[in-house]
């Protein structure tokens, strides 16, 4: 047995390049870790020509001890020395022979080469074009499925539509309320200060009305929906794909498109405008609260708003809601269906769902603005 005061490993290096390493007791991970630096320093200080490993006192070792013995015995620490190992017990020797020099080399040959830049660019380009094609494919499929659904309305799973609408719509009311009121409040506050310099604080009412109804109401609702429900659609369909549930549907002759996607997109298209209208109202409410606090009477505020916000502005906001709802739910489903294999696949899909949704929402919003103002300019 190894006594506490005796080191497990002892190194002696003579000036003529003869090194002796003596092992005793149990060579375990702690002993290896504490001896490593000293061992390296001593063996590299002089040019070692002969390394003698004396293991006659060695009782046992663990994985780390075995590794150290192998490392020394294969000359990794003293590349130019001749090495001898003596006194190792038979059962320990068998373990030592477990790993051969070939294993070690094969292990180091396996290091993967880096992908060259052109190859990476090519792959990325291909991925983008494939994705574009899949999007077009999806859009076509979705349209066809909707057409098919219209032909057999009774067979559409309406219960699923309502269920999704409840999860994605009704349950989102609290967060939409909070964010809309606060954004209305913030914008009113921030703009009231500069407007006061021109004595035009009352016009904050006009601005809040327009901004909330035409832009922020639809936009905030859509972005919230993308984060809350688009991602959920992607995760749900993605998990179903990973669990082979989509395959099960398909072998029944039930296309996931008609069985799952149509319901979600229908729910999205129906609930997004509703939520948008609600968000407009709450946003305006936030602004009105600030104006009331500034001392304007409600009748005056109402009057200002009626003058500036017309029915066509509300119609624009609501129609944005329809389009954004379709984008968010369709993109969520598309990314879900595109889910690949592996532990991070569903996570990747949800990220892609949110990113693509927000991107497309902003692009659609820009198109709306251009279409809406083009006739005004002409």
């Amino acid at each position: 047995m190894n006594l506490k005061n005796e080191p497990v490993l002892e190194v002696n290096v003579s000036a003529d390049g003869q090194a002796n390493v003596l092992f005793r007791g149990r060579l375990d991970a702690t002993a290896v870790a504490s001896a490593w630096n000293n061992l390296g320093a001593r063996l590299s200080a002089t040019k070692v020509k002969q390394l003698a490993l004396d293991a006659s006192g060695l009782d046992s070792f663990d994985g780390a001890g075995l590794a150290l013995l192998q490392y020394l015995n294969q000359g990794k620490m003293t590349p130019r020395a001749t090495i001898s190992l003596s006194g190792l017990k038979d059962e320990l020797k068998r373990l030592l022979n477990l790993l051969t020099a070939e294993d070690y080399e094969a292990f180091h040959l396996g290091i993967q080469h880096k992908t060259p830049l052109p190859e990476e660019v090519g792959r990325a380009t291909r991925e983008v074009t494939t994705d574009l094609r899949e999007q077009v494919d999806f859009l076509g499929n979705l349209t066809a499925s909707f057409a098919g659904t219209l032909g057999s309305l009774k067979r559409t799973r309406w219960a699923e539509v309502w269920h999704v609408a409840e999860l994605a719509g009704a349950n989102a009311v609290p967060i939409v309320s909070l964010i809309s009121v606060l954004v209305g409040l913030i914008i009113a506050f921030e703009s009231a200060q500069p407007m006061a310099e021109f004595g035009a604080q009352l016009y904050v009412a006009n601005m809040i009305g327009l901004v909330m109804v035409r832009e922020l109401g639809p936009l905030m609702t859509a972005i919230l929906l993308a984060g809350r429900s688009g991602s959920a659609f992607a995760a749900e369909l993605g998990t179903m794909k990973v669990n082979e549930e989509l395959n099960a549907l398909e072998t029944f002759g039930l296309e996931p498109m008609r069985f799952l996607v149509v319901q979600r997109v229908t729910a999205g298209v129906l609930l997004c405008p509703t939520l948008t209208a609600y968000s407009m109202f709450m946003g305006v409410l936030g602004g009105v609260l600030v104006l009331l606090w500034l001392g304007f009477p409600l009748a005056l505020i109402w009057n200002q708003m009626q003058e500036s916000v017309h029915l066509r502005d509300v119609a624009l906001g609501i129609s944005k809601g329809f389009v954004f709802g379709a984008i968010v739910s369709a993109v969520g489903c598309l990314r879900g269906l595109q889910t690949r294999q592996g532990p991070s696949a569903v996570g990747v899909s949800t990220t892609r769902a949110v990113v693509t949704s927000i991107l497309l929402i902003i692009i659609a919003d820009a198109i709306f603005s251009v279409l809406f103002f083009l006739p005004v300019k002409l």
Partner: protein
Amino acid sequence: MNPEADIIISVKDLSVSYGERLIFKNVNFEVRRGEVFVILGGSGSGKSTLLKTMIGLYPPQRGEVWIEGGNVVSPNENQRLEILRRFGVMYQSGALFGSMTVLENVQLPLDEFTALPKPIKELVVLAKLKLVGLAGAARKTPSELSGGMQKRAAIARAMALDPRILFLDEPSSGLDPITSAGLDELITGLARHFGITFVIVTHELPSVFAIADRVIMLDSRVRTISAEGKPGELRERATDPWVRQFFNRQPDPALSFHLDKSHA
């Protein structure tokens, strides 16, 4: 030698429920050092729950699990890590970290719990992988491995810190007979040559007869252990007809296919 000294795990009066639902109660058994101990039972009998309770993942209602003199059920904070270091676990699906290579998976415990230098760590990992026959797959990611290889890699990872006990959850489920037999051989080899104690949950009978020194049967009818002993003896001499039925792979009459009889 004192026979008590040979007991490495002792489970005392263990009862586990999920909420209101009782999984098992009054489970008592002991595992001896160096043996391959198998926990058997039908589907839903609580085998995996028992394993999870033994490794401290699930708190029991009552009872104790002693592993080499440390109680897993209510260890103090200082003791907890030290007890965890005494055993390695292979989960049913392998549970390799998908974002890492096999090498990094096996090296992770070494990185976290030892101060070993990099070349030594690599050699330790390589030795473990060689033991499970995966020396050539060190740079692969888990998704590039077959099911059997993933389980082998998971065993290598469980062995990274040289534990004295290995817990395996369903090692041969989902494997073909050849791979499964290879895994059985690995288990018996590790037990014999390295003195590792195995606690294995399975219901693959061929595998049980090949590897088990002793088995216990968790019985979902009585919600506790209904038989304990060597697998061969239980098959031949069990007094409980259900245990004999289990070992001889006979179907439950209530669940058998009756169509041919009723419509004959």
